[in-house]
């Protein structure tokens, strides 16, 4: 860590706090993956890591490199934007896949497929 010697104390403290907070939230999310009881509850656990967990670490990284190189280092924003856009997509796909499989097996724990009135004759395309 010789490169961090010239970092001012305030920046070091802020970076350290953000790092610890982000890592702690990520750990809590992964513990939730183990402790929560069924799949649909477990889906919620990784969102801790993908929102504030990675957010705090990216803020720490941005602050660290910006202060150290005395120029704005902003490319970490890309990972944040990317995470914010992709996490919902993967989680939604995964939950829907799981719901589909549970419904096919006739599991009683998931809401059934909504009842539809049968299509009238001639309405078919």
């Amino acid at each position, binding site marked *: 860590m010789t490169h961090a010697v010239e970092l001012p104390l305030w920046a070091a403290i802020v970076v350290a706090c953000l790092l610890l907070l982000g890592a702690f939230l990520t750990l809590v999310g992964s513990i939730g993956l183990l402790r929560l009881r069924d799949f649909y509850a477990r889906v*919620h656990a990784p969102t*801790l890591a993908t*929102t504030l967990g990675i957010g705090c670490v990216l803020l720490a990284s941005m602050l660290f490199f910006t202060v150290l190189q005395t120029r704005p280092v902003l490319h970490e924003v890309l990972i944040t934007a990317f995470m914010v856009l992709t996490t*919902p997509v993967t989680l*939604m796909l995964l939950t829907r896949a799981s719901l589909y499989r549970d419904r096919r097996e006739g599991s009683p724990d998931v*809401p059934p497929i909504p009842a539809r009135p049968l299509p009238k004759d001639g309405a078919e395309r």
Partner: protein
Amino acid sequence: MTRLLPFPLVTLGLLILWLLLNESVSPGAILLGSVLALVGGGALWLLAPPAGRPRRVLAIARLLWDVLIEIIRSNNAVATLILRGPRSQAGRSGFVLIPLAMRSPYGLAALACILTATPGTVWVDYDAEDGTMLLHVLDLIDEEQWMRIVKDNWERRLMEIFE
């Protein structure tokens, strides 16, 4: 103008992305980035996405700020719930069926992203015919309350922006 720049926001976003990746604002980077952004916007035009664009920039900024506050708040709530252990939340997670009035595809996509990115709620399914969505909530105490939160907090404001 519309032919060359069918999606000005997308094109601008691509240019910013390129500049951030390169970490420079030199003329060369801007030139190459502009060409790539124009090609990207043109490629999106070929895909012919549904029409509609957001209005009211101020409302969007306020919405994003509230999403951030909500994410921080629910991070705290979910972390507490996980650390307290599985017994304290026995049988408390579940599905909620919420009827929506919003029909704009972009508004629905934004709502899905907001709800799923917030810890504690996952958007599961949307039924386009009767306009209901299926939401899974980790800490389901009161269905009515969640319905109110979704409709008042997010749906009404997204409708203002997208419809």
